[in-house]
């Protein structure tokens, strides 16, 4: 028997196909679920390639790391607010014999006495920070490159929902250890809920099962944190990835890339290898961070006591903008109306402002669609400079977010840069209104300038630094003309024009359809697209070439055709 099989194997190696165990398994699966046709389709699916497309993968992999490390943590964490005393003979010495909740005791005990417990906690927490961070960076990439345009608006909303859910996952997870810092965070949550007019106090009682902190909130948060929220995120991840497959991935502008094709590499083997390898890189970096960088050392804060708060009490970074808006808000606007307290000093910074920011973020694809009235599908990404208003709005949004982050860490800014806390707060109170406007204007000017630069380079080529003198004494700089691959990138984009409102009545005296919203739409459209630089048209290139692109001297008019108001798409 052994001899036969050995000879059979040698025959197989002579015939260089797949080894028998692999082919056998594949054959088994193929005959039962039709794996071959499925894999054939998937394996040959083409994906475009760019490093920024890996940002979302960082989020996906940190989520997997979160699930794995989270499962470990649930084995040792006790989600209970029952009172216990920390064992006298257990580390750390600062906690010996202290009265605390079981949730806190199990967290500390897990960190010091469960093998690998602290490592897992730290990996979990770093992965959580990285998860949200990479989601945000991924979302910025999607925003600034216009990847949210038709047909991907729905997938943008799926991603947006995941961002909100991840914030909730962070908030609930952060509250579980029941240390002073997490209790402070819950107290702020309680205050924010209570600031909602009329229903606030009832909602707070509902969340905490009575007056804060009560004994219900940690078991409830636990269920949300390990069951409901991860389940929802997982389902949305599946939907998100399915839609990426189904709608195909976007691609950056480049030679031969249009809205009707996908230029890239097949999923198998190129992306299987890349993505698989990248998972281990992400896991490795997180494990390294968990191994050498301390995070959320809860025993430093001690068990929660509602009376306590320490200096430098802040939430994790993704909630810091809320802390910042609360710190910026002056305390005066609190009114008592007929015995009802209206806490605008909490309501505005903690409910209204984040509401506005998130509404803008979630609604942006639809806003842009409304002002362009563009019904076409877009699979080629925008270069951010070519969509000046969108890029500037995004930059202005980011500037508000960053002001809020700095405001949230104003005490650390004060001590580390030797500044006055009061001066920082006042400066930021002004900046939160002024900075977005300034950033918008500057970004827009930079974008338009870059577009003009593109025009110039397309028309006249790159500067070479070589100055030549002709026989008759004339000087000129030699310009290196663009090859057509580079030119494709610089002239291929679409330029929108402001929507025009038709006359109120046509020649026959019939009123045009549409109501007052059309007025609004056109004024928005004008805001978006009034300032623009047209991409170079083939005619212009021909004219420039006829001129002799290598012999253009300085002072010659280079702005021909710029800011024209006629013509449609130039491609």
């Amino acid at each position, binding site marked *: 028997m052994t001899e036969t099989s050995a000879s059979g194997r040698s025959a197989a190696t002579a015939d260089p196909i797949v080894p028998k165990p692999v082919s056998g398994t594949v054959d088994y699966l193929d005959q039962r679920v039709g794996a071959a046709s499925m894999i054939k389709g998937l394996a040959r699916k083409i994906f475009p390639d760019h490093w920024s497309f890996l940002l979302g993968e960082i989020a996906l992999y940190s989520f997997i790391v979160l699930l794995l490390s989270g499962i470990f943590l649930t084995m040792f964490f006790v989600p209970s607010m029952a009172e216990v005393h920390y064992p006298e003979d257990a580390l750390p010495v600062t906690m010996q014999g202290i009265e605390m909740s079981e949730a806190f005791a199990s967290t500390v005990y897990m960190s010091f006495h469960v093998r690998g417990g602290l490592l897992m906690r730290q990996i979990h927490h770093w992965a959580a920070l990285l998860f949200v961070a*990479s989601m945000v960076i991924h979302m910025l990439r999607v925003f600034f490159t216009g990847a949210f345009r038709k047909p991907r608006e729905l997938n943008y909303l799926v991603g947006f929902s995941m961002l909100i859910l991840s914030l909730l996952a962070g908030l609930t997870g952060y509250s579980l250890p029941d240390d002073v810092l997490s209790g402070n965070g819950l107290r702020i949550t309680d205050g924010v809920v209570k600031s909602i007019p009329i229903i606030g106090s009832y909602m707070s009682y509902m969340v905490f099962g009575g007056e804060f902190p009560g004994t219900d909130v940690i078991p409830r948060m636990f269920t949300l944190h390990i069951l409901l929220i991860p389940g929802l995120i997982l389902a949305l991840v599946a939907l998100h990835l399915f839609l990426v497959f189904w709608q195909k991935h976007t691609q950056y502008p480049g030679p031969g890339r249009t809205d009707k094709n996908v230029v890239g590499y097949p999923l198998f083997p190129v992306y299987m290898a890349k993505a698989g390898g990248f998972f281990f*890189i992400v896991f490795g970096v997180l494990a390294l961070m968990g191994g050498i960088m301390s995070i959320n050392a809860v025993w430093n804060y001690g068990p929660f006591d509602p009376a*306590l708060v*320490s200096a430098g009490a802040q939430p*994790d970074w993704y909630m810091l903008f809320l802390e910042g808006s609360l710190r910026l808000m002056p305390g005066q606007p609190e009114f008592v109306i007929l015995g009802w307290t209206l806490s605008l000093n909490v309501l505005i910074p903690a409910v209204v402002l984040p509401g506005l920011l998130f509404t803008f973020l979630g609604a942006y694809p639809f806003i842009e669609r409304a002002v362009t009235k563009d019904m076409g599908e877009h699979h080629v990404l925008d270069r951010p400079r070519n969509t000046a208003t969108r890029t500037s709005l995004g930059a202005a949004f980011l500037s508000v977010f960053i002001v809020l982050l700095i405001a949230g860490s104003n005490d650390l800014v004060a001590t580390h840069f*030797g500044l006055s806390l009061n001066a920082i707060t006042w400066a930021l109170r002004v900046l939160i209104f002024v900075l977005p406007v300034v950033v918008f204007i500057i970004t827009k000017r930079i974008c338009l300038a870059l577009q003009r630069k593109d025009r110039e380079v397309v028309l006249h080529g790159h500067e070479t630094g070589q100055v030549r003198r002709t026989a008759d004494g004339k000087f000129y700089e030699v310009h290196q003309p663009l090859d057509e691959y580079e030119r494709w990138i610089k002239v291929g984009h679409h330029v929108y024009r402001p929507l025009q409102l038709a006359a109120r009545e046509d020649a026959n005296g019939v009123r045009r359809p549409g109501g007052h919203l059309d007025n609004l739409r056109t004024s928005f459209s004008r805001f978006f697209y009034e300032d623009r630089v047209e991409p170079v048209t083939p005619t212009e290139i021909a004219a420039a070439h006829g001129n002799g692109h290598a012999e253009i001297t300085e002072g010659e008019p280079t702005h021909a055709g710029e800011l024209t108001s006629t013509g449609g798409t130039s491609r």
Partner: protein
Amino acid sequence: MLLLAFALVLVGGVYTAVTPTTAQADSLASADPAKGADLFRTNCSTCHGTGAVGSDLAPSLIGVGAASVHFQVTTGRMPMQANAPQAEEKPPQFSEAEALDMAAYIASLGPGPEIPTAEQVDPALGSPANGMLLFRTNCAMCHNAVGAGGALSEGKYAPSLMDSTPTVIYEAMLTGPQSMPGFNDAILSPEEKRDVIAFLIEQREPQPGGLSLGSLGPVSEGLWVFVVGLGVLIGFSVWIGSRSS
């Protein structure tokens, strides 16, 4: 077991680190008030007035006690360098012996808090767990949960306690320098002060979780996740992205 051995080594290490301070603190009895008076006249009387009676610029020092002088001079806060929101800690301008001479001189002008004995500030005798409870109730709102420091209003701040000697910590609690409230023996008994010191010394051990990142909490953690985590991973992304063709 390993942790226990580790803890033992640390306690021993802390004990030896603390011993020299206690030797110095003991020598107030051998200090020379006359020499202190000379030093005071040359270096302090411009602001604090001859005879330490105070002036428009600085308060009277009669009755502030030896502990206050020892604290201010050995941490370099006095003589004050500039008219800042608060006196900055800087390299001490006087030797320990000179500081004790001045402390003896001020103590001779009127009774006040005394420099603690070696036993009073010995962290090995205190309870870190009780110190934790006391610290977070009385100190953490300004000095941060583990004594890493924090901001106060108008450019003032509560300094980090990570490098302060047990004697200096005790003296600060006793005398309440600058913006800090004083914690006399009726508020925090000498034993409780020692517990606080034991808790603070415990924080200087290497963090069980690795690099402490300044013990500043979530803001520094958030900064580092962007710098290290995202920084490294974006670097890898660019590398992977460039490996296609």
